[in-house]
C-alpha cells in the first residue's frame, strides 16, 4: 500500500512540475554557457549532465504514466480509451509545432553561425598576419646583421674584456640586452640597458633547442612573446674564435619591439587567433547550439506530453465518474453520488446526475415503502382469512383458483395447495367429491352477477354435508372482467342443531302436555275398575279387567315413553374427567360377553328379552390411545346403545359378529380418538341414511327410536362427530371421532391413575 502511494506520489504532478522547472533553469544556464558566459562557462559540463539526467528522469516518469495508461487501456478501465485519445491529440498538438520551431531554429542558428565567417575577412586577417610577419622580418634581419657584426667584433675579445666590450657594443648598436654564453650554455657576460627586464638578476637564457642549433653554426632569430603579452626579438648567433680549436661562444641579442609595432603585432595576433579559434569551433558551436535547442525542444515536448497526460486525465476524470455512476445506477445502486466538480459544464452534469440519482432513490424508497405496506396489507388479509371459520376461495376471470384459506381446505376435506392456479374444471375432475361444489360455483359465476348465494350438499365419508356459498364479483381492472370471491360455510351442524333443538322442544312439550293427563287417566281407569267391577257380570268383568289393565299398562308405557323424551330433551350436566376409552369398552363388552337373554339395565329403550345367539365381539383397541376428557357415565350409555343397536341388527344372523376398533387419527391438523363399531348385519336402510340419528327413526318395531339420537347427542356434547355408513359387502359401520383436547398431553402415569380413579368411582 505504502509502495503504491509512493509510486503514485513520485509519478504525480508535483515532482514532474518541480523537475520541469529545474530543467528549464538548467537549460537557461546552459544556453548562457554556450554563449561564452563567464558565470556558467565553468558549469557547462555539469549543467549538461544535469539536463540529460533530468530529461531521462522526466522521460522515465512519463513512461511510467504511459505504462499505467496502457495497462488501464488493456484492462478496459472506464475512461482509459478516451484518455488515450485525448493524450494522443494533445501530443500531436504539442509535438508538431515544437518540431517545426526546432527545425527552423536550427536552420537559423546554423546559418547565423556560418554568417560569422567570411572568406574576405579570413583573407584580410591572413594578409594582416603576413604583413605583420614581413614587417617584423625586416626588423629581425637588421638585428641579425647587428648580431653577426657584434659576433665578429667579439671574436678576438679576451674574456676579461668581454663585459666592457658587450657594454660598448650594446650601446653602439642600441640593443636592449647582450649576453655571451659559452659553448655549453653557461653565461660568460651580459649587458642590458635599464628597461622592463632590468630588474631580473639572471639574463634570459635561450632554451636547449636554440643552443644546439646555434652550436651547429645556424643563426636563430625569432619573435618571442614574453609575459604580459609583449613581444621581443631574440637573435642568437655563434661567436667563432680566431684560435684554431677554441670552442665557439654564443651571443644572444634581445630587443623589445618598438611599442607601435608591438601593439599592432599583438592586435593582429589576437584578432587572428580569435578568428581561427572561432573557425575551428564552428562545428562544436553548432553542435552546442543544436544540443541546447534539442534539449529545450525535448524538454518542451516532454513537459507537453506530461501536461497532455494530466490534462487528459483531468478532463476524463468526471466522465469516468459519470460512467461509473451510470453503471452503478444500471446495477440498481441508486445511492451513488459523484464527487462535486467545478462550475463548468462537467460540474452541471455531475450535479444533474446526483439530483437524478437522489430522486430515483427517493422514488425507489417510496416504492419500497408502498410494497412493504401492500405486503403488510396482504399479510393482514391472509391472517384474517386464515383465521376465518368460513372457507374463502378467490378465482380469476378464467375460473382459476388464486387464493384460498385454511378453513376452505378444512371444510372441503382436501389439500388445496396443488389446486392453486388450476381451473375449476381441473378441480372438479381431480377431486370428484367436490365436483358439485365446483359446478355450482361455475354456474353461478357464469351468470355474471355481482353477488350470488347457493347451497350445495356434498356426500363424503362423514356423511352428507351442506355448504352455503356466497359469491362476490371483484372489481374490474382496466375494463376487463375481474375475478370473484367465494365464501362458504359448512352449515350441516347448524341445520342439525336446529333440527335437534326442534325435536327437543317437541319432546319437552309432548312430555309436558301428554304426561299431565296420563296420571288422571290411569287413576280414572283404576277407579272405574274398582267401582264398576263388582257391579258387572263375570263376562263383563273380564272385559272390564282386561280393558282397564290395558289402559293402565298403555298409560304406563306412555309414561315411560314420555320420560324417555324428557331425558332426551333435558339439558345434562356433564361430569367430565380424563377417561381411557379402551378400559370403558372392555368393561362394557364384559357385560355382553356370552350373555344372551336379558340385556343391560343401563339402557332404557329395551325391555324385552332377546333370545338370539349372542354376537361375538372382536376388539381392535389401540394400546397407545390417549385419554379423552369425557363423562364416563354418558359414554357407557353410548356404548350400550350402539351394542344394543348392533345386536338388534344381528338378530337373524347366524354368525353375528361385532367389531369394535379404536385408534388415534389426525384430521385437519387435529388429533381425534376414533371409535368404530361394525357389524355383519343387513346394514342401514338406504332411505333412512340421512335421518339415522334423528329421534323416532328406527328400523325395528322395538324401542323408542331414540337410541342413536341419544348417542349422537352425547357425542356432540363431547364436541365429537359421528356418521353411519353401510359396508360394501354386508354390514353397517358407525364411526365416532372425539377430539383429544387438553388431556391428550397427560402422561402414561396420569393415564393409569385416571383410569384407576374411574374404575374406583365406577365400583
Amino acid at each position, binding site marked *: 500500500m505504502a509502495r503504491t502511494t509512493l509510486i503514485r506520489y513520485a509519478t504525480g504532478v508535483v515532482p514532474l512540475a518541480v523537475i520541469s522547472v529545474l530543467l528549464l533553469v538548467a537549460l537557461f544556464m546552459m544556453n548562457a554557457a554556450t554563449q561564452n558566459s563567464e558565470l556558467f562557462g565553468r558549469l557547462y559540463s555539469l549543467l549538461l549532465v544535469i539536463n540529460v539526467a533530468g530529461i531521462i528522469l522526466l522521460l522515465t516518469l512519463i513512461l511510467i504514466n504511459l505504462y499505467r495508461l496502457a495497462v488501464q487501456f488493456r484492462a478496459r478501465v472506464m475512461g482509459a480509451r478516451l484518455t488515450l485519445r485525448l493524450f494522443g491529440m494533445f501530443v500531436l498538438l504539442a509535438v508538431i509545432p515544437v518540431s517545426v520551431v526546432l527545425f527552423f531554429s536550427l536552420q537559423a542558428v546554423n546559418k547565423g553561425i556560418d554568417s560569422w565567417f567570411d572568406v574576405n575577412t579570413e583573407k584580410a586577417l591572413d594578409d594582416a598576419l603576413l604583413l605583420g610577419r614581413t614587417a617584423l622580418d625586416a626588423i629581425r634581419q637588421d638585428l641579425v646583421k647587428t648580431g653577426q657584426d657584434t659576433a665578429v667584433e667579439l671574436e678576438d675579445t679576451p674574456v676579461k674584456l668581454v663585459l666592457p666590450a658587450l657594454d660598448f657594443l650594446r650601446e653602439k648598436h642600441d640593443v636592449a640586452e647582450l649576453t655571451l654564453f659559452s659553448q655549453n650554455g653557461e653565461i660568460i657576460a651580459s649587458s642590458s640597458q635599464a628597461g622592463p627586464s632590468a630588474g631580473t638578476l639572471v639574463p634570459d637564457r635561450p632554451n636547449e633547442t636554440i643552443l644546439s642549433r646555434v652550436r651547429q653554426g645556424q643563426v636563430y632569430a*625569432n*619573435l*618571442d612573446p614574453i609575459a604580459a603579452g609583449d613581444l621581443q626579438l631574440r637573435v642568437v648567433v655563434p661567436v667563432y674564435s680566431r684560435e684554431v680549436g677554441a670552442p665557439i661562444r654564443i651571443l644572444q641579442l634581445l630587443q623589445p619591439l618598438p611599442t607601435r609595432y608591438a601593439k599592432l603585432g599583438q592586435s*593582429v595576433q589576437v584578432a587572428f587567433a580569435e578568428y*581561427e*579559434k572561432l573557425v575551428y569551433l564552428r562545428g562544436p558551436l553548432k553542435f552546442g547550439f543544436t544540443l541546447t535547442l534539442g534539449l529545450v525542444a525535448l524538454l518542451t515536448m516532454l513537459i507537453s506530453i506530461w501536461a497532455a497526460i494530466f490534462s487528459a486525465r483531468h478532463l476524463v476524470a468526471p466522465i469516468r465518474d459519470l460512467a461509473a455512476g451510470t453503471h452503478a445506477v444500471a446495477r440498481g445502486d441508486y445511492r451513488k453520488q459523484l464527487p462535486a466538480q467545478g462550475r463548468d459544464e462537467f460540474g452541471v452534469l455531475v450535479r444533474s446526475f446526483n439530483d437524478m440519482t437522489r430522486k430515483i432513490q427517493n422514488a425507489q424508497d417510496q416504492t419500497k415503502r408502498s410494497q412493504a405496506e401492500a405486503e403488510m396489507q396482504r399479510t393482514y388479509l391472509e391472517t384474517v382469512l386464515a383465521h376465518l371459520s368460513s372457507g374463502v376461495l378467490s378465482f380469476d376471470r378464467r375460473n382459476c383458483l388464486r387464493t384460498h384459506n385454511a378453513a376452505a381446505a378444512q371444510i372441503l376435506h382436501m389439500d388445496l395447495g396443488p389446486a392453486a392456479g388450476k381451473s375449476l374444471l381441473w378441480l372438479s375432475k381431480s377431486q370428484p367429491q367436490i365436483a358439485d361444489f365446483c359446478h355450482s360455483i361455475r354456474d353461478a359465476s357464469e351468470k355474471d352477477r355481482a353477488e350470488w348465494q347457493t347451497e350445495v350438499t356434498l356426500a363424503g365419508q362423514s356423511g352428507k354435508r351442506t355448504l352455503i356459498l356466497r359469491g362476490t364479483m371483484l372489481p374490474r381492472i382496466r375494463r376487463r372482467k375481474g375475478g370473484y370471491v367465494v365464501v362458504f360455510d359448512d352449515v350441516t351442524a347448524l341445520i342439525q342443531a336446529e333440527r335437534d333443538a326442534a325435536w327437543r322442544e317437541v319432546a319437552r312439550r309432548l312430555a309436558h302436555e301428554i304426561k299431565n293427563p296420563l296420571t288422571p287417566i290411569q287413576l280414572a281407569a283404576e277407579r272405574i275398575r274398582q267401582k264398576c267391577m263388582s257391579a258387572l257380570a263375570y263376562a263383563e268383568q273380564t272385559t272390564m279387567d282386561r280393558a282397564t289393565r290395558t289402559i293402565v299398562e298403555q298409560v304406563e308405557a306412555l309414561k315411560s315413553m314420555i320420560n324417555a323424551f324428557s331425558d332426551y330433551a333435558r339439558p345434562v350436566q356433564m361430569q367430565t374427567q380424563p377417561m381411557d376409552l379402551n378400559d370403558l369398552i372392555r368393561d362394557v363388552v364384559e357385560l355382553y360377553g356370552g350373555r344372551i337373554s336379558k340385556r343391560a339395565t343401563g339402557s332404557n329403550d329395551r325391555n324385552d328379552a332377546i333370545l338370539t345367539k349372542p354376537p361375538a365381539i372382536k376388539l381392535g383397541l389401540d394400546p397407545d390411545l390417549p385419554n379423552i376428557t369425557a363423562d364416563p357415565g354418558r359414554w357407557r350409555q353410548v356404548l350400550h346403545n350402539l351394542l344394543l343397536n348392533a345386536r338388534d341388527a344381528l338378530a337373524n344372523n347366524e354368525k353375528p359378529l361385532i367389531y369394535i376398533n379404536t385408534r388415534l387419527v389426525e384430521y385437519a391438523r387435529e388429533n381425534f380418538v376414533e371409535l368404530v363399531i361394525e357389524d355383519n348385519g343387513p346394514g342401514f336402510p338406504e332411505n333412512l341414511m340421512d335421518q339415522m340419528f334423528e329421534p323416532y327413526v328406527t328400523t325395528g318395531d322395538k324401542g323408542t327410536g331414540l337410541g342413536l339420537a341419544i348417542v349422537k347427542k352425547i357425542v356432540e356434547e363431547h364436541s365429537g362427530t359421528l356418521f353411519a355408513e353401510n359396508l360394501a359387502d354386508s354390514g353397517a359401520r358407525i364411526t365416532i371421532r372425539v377430539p383429544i383436547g387438553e388431556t391428550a398431553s397427560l402422561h402414561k402415569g396420569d393415564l393409569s391413575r385416571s383410569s384407576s380413579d374411574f374404575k374406583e368411582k365406577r365400583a
Partner: protein
Amino acid sequence: MGFIMRAYRRSNWLTAAALTAALSASVADAEFTVTNVEPRLTAEALALSGVLDLGLSTKVEEALSKGIPMDVIIDISLYRERSVVWDARIQTWALRRRISYHALSRQYLLMGHRPDAATVESFVSLQSALRTMGSLDELSFALNREFDSNSNYYVEVRASLDIESLPAPLRPVAYTSLAWHLSSGWTEWHVQR
C-alpha cells in the same frame, strides 16, 4: 566509425581490419605516458624528477594549431604503505601546464612549467614544447606533516588533458570523443630516501 561499420557490412574484411589497425595505431601514438619518475623525500619536502611523454592526438594538435590552449594537469599523490588496511594518502598536488600556439611568431608557448607561473617560454616545434612540458625538473613539494621514517612511501602520478579548461562548445565534443581523452592513468613510483 560509421565507415568502418559499413566496411564490415560489405564483408571487406581486409579493408576493415586495416582501418581498425590504423585507427588504433593513431590512438596508441596519441597518449600520455609517465615514462619515469624519481621521487625522493627530504626533511620537509618531496622532491620529484621525471619524464612524461605527452603525445597529442591529431584532433588535439589541430585544435592547438587553431589557437585553442590546452591544459595538462599532472596529479601527484603521496601514499604511505600500510600492511593491514589500505594505504594512507598523505597529500596530493596538482600541476597545471598550458600550451598554446602563437600565430604571429609561429611558436608554441608554454606556461606553468617554471616555478614562476607567469613565465612564458616559446618553442619553434611542438615536440620540443611537449618535451619541456612533460619534464619534471627537481620539483619540490612542501609537506604539511613530518613523514614516518619507518614506513614506505610511494607516489602516484597521472597526466591528463583537462577537458574542462576547453571552450564550452568544445567540451561536449571532447567528452564524447576518444581522441580527446588523453590520460596516462595512475602510475606508482616508490619514494627513495
